[in-house]
């Protein structure tokens, strides 16, 4: 993807990533702030192609892992896998409705939390950090997915994402 459309994607990604880090790291809001990094990744992955999406996922994952001392790599795996899967959905689903976008964001964010939970278990030092599946993934992950999808719709409307997705 080239041209103004591509520029718009990268601008939205950069702005969302900046706000995410400002809210979560700068202001220490933690889960109180929506997961805008995953939102940016999910929105961009359907626009920029498989390779770039995977690279973006790896970069975002490493940024989050930089502050996750004992589960280093779990976010990188989760974000890269989600980026690849999201990029591939473009070949499988050509959604152009808000309903599709909400479902896509909900499933994308929840899948990211599931993969992260599984990947933390692979890290020997981080296994003890993992909370029970029901607590961390089903309850907290479910709420976070709804929260992120709600914000995602507003972002998509404001930035024009999904209108032609």
């Amino acid at each position, binding site marked *: 993807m080239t041209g103004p459309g591509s520029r718009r994607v990268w601008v939205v990604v950069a702005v969302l990533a900046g706000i995410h*880090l*400002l809210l*979560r*790291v*700068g*202001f*220490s*809001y*933690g*889960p*109180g*702030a929506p997961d805008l990094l995953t939102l940016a990744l999910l929105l961009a992955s359907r626009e920029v*192609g*498989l*390779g*770039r*999406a*995977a*690279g973006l*996922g*790896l970069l975002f*994952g*490493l*940024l*989050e*892992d*930089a*502050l*996750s*001392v*004992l*589960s*280093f*790599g*779990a*976010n*990188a*795996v989760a*974000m*890269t*896998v989600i980026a*690849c899967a999201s*990029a591939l959905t473009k070949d499988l689903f050509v959604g152009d409705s808000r309903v599709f976008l909400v479902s896509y964001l909900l499933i994308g964010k929840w899948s990211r939390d599931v993969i*992260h939970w599984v*990947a*933390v278990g*692979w*890290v020997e*030092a*981080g*296994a*003890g*950090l993992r*909370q*029970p599946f029901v*607590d961390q993934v089903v309850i907290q992950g479910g709420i976070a997915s709804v929260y992120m999808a709600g914000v995602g719709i507003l972002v998509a409307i404001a930035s024009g994402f999904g209108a032609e997705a």
Partner: protein
Amino acid sequence: MAPYGTEPESNGRRRDLIAAGVFLVVAFSTLFLSQPTQQTISTGLQVSVLRPFMGVQRRLAAARIRAAQADSMLARIDSLSEMLASHSALVDENRTLRGLLELSERAGPQYLPATVLRPGTPGSESMFIVDVGRRDGIRNNAPVVGPFGLVGVIREVREGDAVGMDWTHPDFRASAMLEDGSAFGLVERDPGDFREEDRLVLNGIPFNLEVVEGAMVVTSGLGGIYPRGIPIGRVGGQNDAEGEWRKSYWLEPVVQPGAATHVLVLTEGASPGVSGLWAPDSIR
């Protein structure tokens, strides 16, 4: 005429697949990198891309402290003190700072006051960053204490700051004893079904010894990490008994890590015993 018109698209697709495959392999390999390599990458990102955001957090924390100090002074000199004192968050922070100040005076220069920053990213639970580092004399495994007792321990020291873990971390262990020295054991975290249910357990107490509820448990000084005498928690009841030779007890921690915003960090060369620092009335 272009009989092979789809070839460039096919090449681009192949390049995309190869790139994605490489990124996936790199992502999975990060899980299995050695800890020093992981720390190098983390530190690299923290001092580059994440630096402005961590700077914001640091400045906000400093601003909060300044605001608290200013409020505290105002509260002393004008008639608004009653109204301000009723503000529970401010009262709590004042109490913490005052307790820390008194403790700092008793502890002397071997303990450095520090502000606790908590990264809000997934996987960073139980970890915190303090704004003192190697240049201030902080070393790895330095104990971190608050006005009421043990908060945690430093895991990784950098030039200007350090990463620590609090007692809710699964790797947390502390050699401990009853305050009167009648029994020694090991304190570790017992994870609850939910994070808020995490508790501390004192293991290895002789079976024939009856420990009364409410007895204070302090660090024993064994193991060389924590100096002797730092309060950890109060005995809250018996947890388990192994055969007929030892028991374990629940502890009610004296420090709630989430409430620890200002702490003291032990510097190199500090004295091994700190029993006198926590006066009985300062321990909850």
